[in-house]
């Protein structure tokens, strides 16, 4: 069964936002009982049905690489982390809804991971400035996930969700907001599960089906997927 094709997806974010809990939930459909600090990188595998329900359905392995650490780490730690950023097919950016800094740090995280691919030499280049142009022609699909939704009070929810909607727009990505200790947010059929499935499908498509035409001329792919949806602020 190990002969299925695979794609590699990075899970990035500040320490303590809940990446390990999220990955555990995505791969084992169970809540992580005792989260502990991640050293280095921890990997987990999810079995995903591409184009589920259609005749072209095919099963793939999705490797979720949960890279630990913080954006302010020493350059030696960053260089070591860079070894995990090779040949990445998709990136999930995780931030904590109760912590604004973690959302702001996502820009730095994405630059760290994406710059690694643009520069083929061994030197890690980080200019630290966020540049929208870089994300405009970025080929790697992104997904923004906000955690600890249960800790946001009802009254503040609207404000927080508006902010995260802007964040996801900056990355040209879909966004999901959930609570990693409650599996019902990703229950089959919910809008979150649909978005997740669509994201994984996009990753697989980019990796295996758009090989021939790598440079997509004219309007980029994501307009078809992300531009048309209404950013709904109601979550079931």
């Amino acid at each position, binding site marked *: 069964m190990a002969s299925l094709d695979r794609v590699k997806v990075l899970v990035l974010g500040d320490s303590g*936002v809940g990446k390990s809990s999220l990955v555990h939930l995505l791969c084992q459909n169970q809540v992580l009982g005792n989260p502990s600090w991640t050293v280095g990188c921890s990997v987990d595998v999810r*079995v995903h049905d591409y184009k589920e329900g259609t005749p072209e359905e095919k099963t793939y392995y999705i490797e979720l690489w949960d890279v630990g650490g913080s954006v302010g780490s020493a350059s030696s730690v960053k260089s070591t982390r860079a070894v995990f950023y090779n040949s990445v097919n998709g990136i999930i950016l995780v931030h904590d809804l109760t912590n604004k800094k973690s959302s702001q740090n996502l820009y730095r995280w994405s630059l760290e991971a994406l710059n690694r691919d643009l520069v083929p030499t061994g030197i890690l280049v980080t200019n630290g400035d966020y540049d929208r142009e870089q994300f405009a022609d970025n080929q790697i699909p992104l997904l923004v996930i906000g955690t600890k939704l249960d800790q946001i009070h009802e009254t503040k929810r609207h404000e927080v969700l508006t902010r995260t909607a802007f964040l996801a727009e900056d990355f040209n990505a879909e966004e999901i907001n959930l609570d990693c200790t409650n599996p019902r947010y990703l229950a089959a059929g919910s809008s979150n599960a649909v978005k997740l499935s669509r994201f994984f499908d996009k990753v697989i498509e980019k990796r295996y089906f758009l090989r021939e035409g790598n440079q997509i001329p004219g309007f980029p792919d994501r307009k078809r997927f992300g531009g048309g949806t209404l950013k709904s602020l109601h979550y079931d």
Partner: protein
Amino acid sequence: MSFLIDSSIMITSQILFFGFGWLFFMRQLFKDYEVRQYVVQVIFSVTFAFSCTMFELIIFEILKVLNSSSRYFHWKMNLCVILLILVFMVPFYIGYFIVSNIRLLHKQRLLFSCLLWLTFMYFFWKLGDPFPILSPKHGILSIEQLISRVGVIGVTLMALLSGFGAVNCPYTYMSYFLRNVTDADILALERRLLQTMDMIISKKKRMAMTRRTMFQKGEVHNKPSGFWGMIKSVTTSAPGSENLTLIQQEVDALEELSRQLFLETADLYATKVQGKETKERIEYSKTFKGKYFNFLGYFFSIYCVWKIFMATINIVFDRVGKTDPVTRGIEITVNYLGIQFDVKFWSQHISFILVGIIIVTSIRGLLITLTKFFYAISSSKSSNVIVLLLAQIMGMYFVSSVLLIRMSMPLEYRTIITEVLGELQFNFYHRWFDVIFLVSALSSILFLYLAHKQAPEKHMAP
């Protein structure tokens, strides 16, 4: 009238220090985190402000600024406030934030933090027993009791840090030339790391597929949790889940290995960066500015070695320095070199400069060390507790600096400290500092030797 002017000067300077502490907290310490509890920031800045005020008062003492009685009043007041903060407020808040992190005790936070604080007070009190620091004529709740204990803790900390710093400074300076890490070494280690990750992934793929087939067949795999779950799992177990636990154990071992490899790679990168800095430093030292910093590096290394030597001499020959370096220096110049100058005038200015340098470098050194420490060990959950611990350490460090700085000042300036702090056995503190300094230096030497031997040789090409 003059008292009012003096007080307003003091208060202005305190507000300035508070602002500086606030900025330092926001810009340096907490630049990657979000400040949710402003109490923490306030406490840190207040501790910093009052500690700096103490140093300011020493400087004023030397320069004879302000009225002597108002100086004395401010000393006393400052001391009381600092002790209040260090013994009552900060430990209480540390306990409170620790308890807040534990979900179970969330409801009765206040109760448990009071309990923690009482435990702290008990051990704090017991600390004073084995040390001959006080004459028994002092009451229970006097300032001297508190100061003596705070002094012991602070002096221990100072000596530990100084000892480690004294050994680390020449070591890092020399080790730039000793360890040579090439790119090939790093690449080899990275390859091993990626191979380990691949092995973990293939095992996890098997597990995921097994789980999926089990789910489709209708067997639900529940991880045994809790006491009854463990008992149940002993009697009933599906064959699929047994397989899973076996693979899980293999995966755990591999994950431990991957963590090890990650840390070793990071260490190699750090050494490589140091090596590059050394090469740059050698180039840079050809310039004039470079020679100047090079010289400073040599000077501090020799100074550190000399300090260790002096500490040993002090302990072996059982002597505590009687005169301060300023007076001794002046005596030497007057008696041996025959240069005549106005002793009183110069001793005041020189001791001001010397004490000023000591204060500034110790504050700067402490803040840098604290920042590095904070970055290394804090996470978003524990950042509040760690910052408060650092504030506690900082306060105790500064209080004991005042104790020890007394030795560097000429006699006429020592009186104010002796008056304010009461009759403490100052000699004891110096002896204690020397002992701990020596112990710390020796253990750092041992530790660095072991670390140096063990780490890189494994991965470097022979």
